[in-house]
Every structure is written in C-alpha cells, then in structure tokens.
C-alpha cells in the first residue's frame, strides 16, 4: 500500500505492507536513531513521536502513521534545550537508548513543563537504559524543564 506522512517536517511518500510496522519504514528512510531492540514495545528504544505523542515504532503499524507528523531524533536540532540538557548532564553512555529518551522527554515537557520526580519516573518508565543512566537522565529532565520555563 502507498501512503504519506510528514517526517521531521518534510512530506514523505512511502510504500509498505499492510502488516508492516512504522519502524521498518523509518529505517528505510535512513532514520537509524529508532532501533529494533526488544521486538515487543517494552523498551522504548524505537520511540518516535506521532503527532507529538511517543509511540513504539515496532508496535505502530506504518499505516497508522498515514497523514500524521512523525518526529525522530534526526529531526531534533542540536540547539534543542532537551538535547543541550542531556549533553550538559552527560546523560548517556552507549547511546543506543538515548534518542528514545530524548523524544519521550520532549513529549513530557510539552505536556507537563514542571514535572516532579514521581512524574518524571512515571513518564520515563517505558524507556530502558541497560547502561544505567537514569540518574543523569533525570538531572537532564530537571535542567531542561528549568531552561524551558525560564525562557518562557
């Protein structure tokens, strides 16, 4: 089947099988930041935003994304406050899970600009980091939140 969506701000015409997942389409388009990892949608490493909402690319049918705005970390500029906060906090080690966390955090702060620790923990519960960066990731979320609220 053929469909179209907006990928990181530009129109994309794509072809896919009806049973194919969005992750496969994105990888064919060169978005290697969303990564096949657990195959079940529990680890968050394939997280992308669909109309600003974090979803697991491995569980979202490519057809479900038709007509929507899809954001991957390739579409996030280096100047983005969340990206800057992660860099300043050194909130990464191997980096495999990091794009998924970045997008989840952007969605969190869009919806809740001043999350407390419990709200941060709940929002990030669907992203696993085996390297164990959770402390610095939470630091980065708080720093980004302060930056975004300060700039507002």
């Amino acid at each position: 089947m053929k469909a179209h969506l907006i990928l990181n701000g530009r129109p994309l015409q794509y072809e896919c099988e009806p049973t194919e997942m969005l992750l496969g389409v994105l990888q064919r388009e060169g978005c290697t930041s969303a990564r096949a990892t657990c195959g079940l949608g529990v680890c968050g490493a394939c997280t992308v935003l669909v109309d600003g909402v974090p979803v697991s690319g491995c569980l979202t049918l490519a057809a479900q994304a038709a007509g929507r705005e899809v954001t991957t970390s390739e579409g996030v500029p280096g100047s983005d406050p969340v990206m800057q906060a992660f860099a300043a906090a050194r909130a990464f080690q191997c980096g495999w899970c990091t794009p998924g966390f970045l997008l989840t955090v952007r969605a969190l702060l869009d919806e809740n600009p001043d999350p407390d620790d419990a709200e941060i923990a709940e929002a990030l519960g669907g992203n696993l980091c085996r390297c164990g960066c959770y402390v610095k990731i939470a630091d980065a979320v708080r720093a980004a939140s302060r930056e975004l609220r300060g700039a507002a």
Partner: protein
Amino acid sequence: MSAAGIDPRLTGAQRYAAHAERPGMWHAAFVRSPHAHARVDRVDASAVPADCVALLPGDVEDLRRYGCQARDQRVLADVARHVGDVVAAVAAPTPAAAAAAARAIEVDYTELPAVFDAVEAVAPGAPLLHPTAAESAHEAVSIGVRPLPGTNVCHRFRIRHGDVATGFADADVVVQREFRTPSAAHAPMEPHATLAEWDGGRLTLTTGTQTPFNLRTDIAVAFGMAEEDVRVIAPPMGGSFGAKTFVRLEALVAALARKAGRPVKATLERTEEFVTLNRHPATIRVRLGARRDGTLVAKELDCWVDTGAYADCGPGVATKMGYAGVGPYRIPHVRVDALAIYTNLPPNGAFRGYGAMQSVWASERTMDALAEALDTSPLELRRKNLLRDGDAFATGEVMHDVHFEECLDAAARAVGYAENPRGAGLCVLLKGMQTPSRAAISVERTPIGYVVRSASCEMGQGVRESIRLMAAEQLGCEPGQVEVPDPDTDTSPYDTRTTSSRSTHMMGRALAEAVRDLRANGGERGYGEVVNEGGLDPDTGQGVASTHWHQGAAAARLSVDEETGRVAVEHVHGVAYAGRVVDRAGAELQNEGSMIMGLGTALFEAIDFASGQVTNANFSDYNVPSVGDLPTRFTHELIERDGAEPHGLGETVLPPVPAAIGNALHSLGIDVHELPMTPERVLEAIDRR
C-alpha cells in the same frame, strides 16, 4: 563529535555494528537445536529456495575447533549441547527471506541425556559433554587451564595457603553456609551484530566486540588462516557488559560469507540473545573460622561454576570467583576449590564483575553469619581483619595501595550503619584486574592535532573519552584536537582486550610511554607499550592475581513488607577507590550503572530454564531495572588520592550491592542464600526465622 559539537550518541547519528552495510550484502539466519543435548543426524536443506545459500555440516568440515580457553566449539554443532546451539545457517537477500529459508531446513536429531546443574554435572553417572576437550588445555593463552579428563570439569582452580585443618582447629567459632546464584542476561540494548566480507583469502569482520585481537586469533585457528589475513574492525557497541567477547557470531557469518561469495551480516533477535552468552550460575559453599576475639583464622571456599555448553572464558571466571571469594582479609589458612563445569545450558562467559559478584555474595554474607555467631558488629568484624599495606593475600602477593578500610567506612557512614545497624547491611570487596596483560598505543601528529590508535573498544564505558582526555593532557592540546578511531586490528597496536576495567589504567600508562617516545623522536609519532607480568599457579593459587586491585564497598538500608515479602530499598551507597579520576562524569556513570545492574541482580534478575529451554527470553518476562527501580536515596562516591594512578572502576560497585542488601535483610533475621531476593524467597526466609 558531530559538526555541531554534540556527541552523535545524543543526536542519534551514531552507527553501531547493527547498522553496518556493504554493497551486495546478504542477511543471515540461524537454525538452532530445540534440544539441550542431541546428535545431529541429518540436515535437509532441500526446501531452501534456490536464491538463498544454506550453510550445512559439509560446508564446515575443513574448519577447526576453537575457543579462547578450551578449544571445544565448532562453527556448526555436530552435537547440539544446548537449546539454541546453531546446527545450520542461511544467507538470503533480506532478513525476512533468511528467516523463512531457515524455517525450511529440517534437522533430524537423536536426543542424548542432558544435565542442567553444575553440582549434578560432576556427580557419578552424569553425561559427559566434551570427552576430548581436555586435549587443548595447553593451548589456552594467558591462563593455565586444568581440566579433569573424563569429567565435565573444564578447569579447576585451587588456592592452598597455609593449612586449613590447623586453622580450623585453632578456631573458637566456625560457620558454614551454602549460596546459589542464577544465570542472568547481559541484555545489552544493541543485540549482537556481525558483518563478514572476504577479499581473496583475506577476511574482514565488522563486529561488536570487546576483544578484537582475541577474536582474530580464534577465527584464524578456526579457518586455518594466518592471523594477518583476518581483520577485525570494532565499531562502538550499544552496550555489552561482557556479552560481546571472543567468538560469538563471527565464525558462522564468515563461513556463510565464504559460501555465498558475498558479504553477509547477522543481527540477532532478542530471543536469540538469551541463548548466546549468559552469566555463570554458581553454587558456593563457605566455611569460615575465627577466634573468640574475631580474628579470622581459616576459610574454605568451594565453587561449582556452571559454564554451560562451551567453556568460553569459564576457566578465567572460575579462577577470579575463587580468589575474589577470599575477600579483602588477612586469613592465614585458606583453601579454595573452584570448578568450571560443563552443563547443557547455553554458554556462560564474561559478565560485568567476572565471577566476583557470585563469590562476594557468598563470602560477605558469611561474614555477617560469623558476626552473628560471635555476637559482634559486622562492621567491627570486617575492620579487624581487613588487609593493610604490606599484608600478604591468600595468593602470597603483598598488597600495596590498599584502601579497603576507607571504602568500608565511607559506605557505613553513608547509611548511618554504626548508629543504627538494624535494617542496614555492608559489603567490602576486592576484585582483580586481568593479569598478565599487555597494552600498546600509538600517537601520530596530524595537521590539526593528533590521532591516537588504541584497540580499546567503546561500549558506553567512555574509554574513548578517557583516552582523548589523557592524550590531551599529556600532549598539551585540546581534547577536540585528538582523534581516537575505532579499533582495527590492521592499524591498532595490540591490546589484550577491553575487559576487567583495565583500559583507562593500562592505556594511560602506555600513552605516557608513547608520548615520551614521540617527544624523543622528532614529535611526529610515538609508540608505547606496557606489559604486566603475573598470573596464578592454578594448582596452588600462588603468584600475582592482579598487579593492581579494584577496591570498593556498598551499604544498603531497607525495609520489608512482611506480608508480601517486598523489599523496599531506601538507600544504597556505593564506594569505589578511583585513585585518580580522568573523566568525572564518565566515572560517575560507571558507578551508577554498576549499582543499578547490582540492584537488578539482587532483587529480580534471573534467566529461567525448563529442561534447558529459556522460558523468559524477552524483556517483558526478564526484567532489567527501569527508572522506577531506583531507591529514593541512590548515592555513591569516588575516593581519590593525590598522585595516584587511575584505578579501574567499571565493575567495582556491582558485586557489593546484592551482598549489602542480603546483609541488611539478615540484620532483620531474614536470611536469604539464593539470588535474586524475590518476595517469594523473602517470605520463605521469614517463615524460617
């Protein structure tokens, strides 16, 4: 760094082995035994489509047995020794076509008796898994392997220090306990991925690996090639923790590429990860004797270490488990017997801590049992017996640069142990660094700075950044002017391997030599190498276990819901002796990551087996810690001293976390001997109280 100055791991631009591509590349899929122990009678690939390539037993007849410490592995198993053992493979234009072609291969097996427990595997009548593996023991590098022919023991490590009979006769109090630890999954987020390409007689492997030179050696052995004809390129890994060591997929993918006449790539599915390489289960018995005043006089440690279907580095793990289990204490009489034993579980290998977690769990829990028997404080009992500078360890080596007491005191202080020991627990440990080992590094001037070539492999631990910072400091330039390319056995100087928390320490020393050489010879290029001699006599355990010891401690404070058995860890504090910290954020991340892995080990991580079949081979049923698993207070510290060398700390504060939690439960009368400390086990221990 990207042009914008942001690390590609943050922007998502980082490429891993899983993203490697070559023109004309095909994809691999594997046919795996559903039986834990079975002879492969017939492999029928007649239904495989004509446009796919099948790798069958006849295709690998010319390939030889290989293995880093025992040559007991074949490229395709002719006898499947674990569920998931690869008996055939296919390459096809797409991953889906390869998976379909693999399903089209039919295999006939004759099942054989199987054994799934290390203690049972050395009992009379246990099936013999590797009748001839003992023949290759003399070829193992960097460790003296001692198999027991005619048994499933691929290595036995011994320490004989003093005379334990005399020692125990002198003891006023003796305690004996038995402990068990399960298998666990490294669960790196990036699965194993390997791309193989032949060019005439030359093989290039692009693969996620911590051990490029060891891999080159083992592949050369398997294919009967000169090492110079094998090239290993090691891109950064999306995590490893020991999983991506020695030969995993590389021989299979190389054989497929050879038959297909084109590059072939394999990327494992998550379920396959659970049958590739896991952590050694262990049964450990500890007997510890002391005088009435708390002076330790004798210790016996027996370890049954389940190395699974193939030895891999099980001999090394059993050795390290054996000497780490003595603990950082002055004990005049010590006997250790650690057996690495074959079973029909998937192979077990290097896992962050390398055997230390298992024996530290057993040893430090026994210290608290002894403290209880002596009616003394667990903190004071440890303080009284800790090794100091100039003391001899059970291996005979004299300890120097000793900081155990500082580490222990810092951990105890952090949780207010002395004021309130109830609900709190301690652990102090020593862990060795791979000895002997060799590290070399080269430095060349470039138009904008320098390129530093090192075979240290990046897996998130931050070694590339540490090398960059040390080079900048020594060369007098900015870190951004130092390029550190991916390891490549064609161009990187030799390094033993990126394991054992050795790389910052060893490469820092090699770098100093290289910079000295560069300055003495015109400033264009320099080469430096450091060699640590040592090792232990496997018959006596005497010698040099480690030229430099990793030292640390942990403390935990917790409460227990006695209705549900749920443990609520309120505070865990880890302490690592760092010597000199090179990259502070990186060191903090290593402490935090180690402790989080320790929490998982302590409370919920275990691979479950039924007749050798993994029953929780996915991230829904096998849980790794998420952000919600962190205790409210999660703290750590790095102890430094002026003028000290960098001390490895990539693993140090993982092993003490389970023991500290177990000892905190013990302080409440809840005595758990088996990991993980699940609610079921806690409730059962409460019933026994």
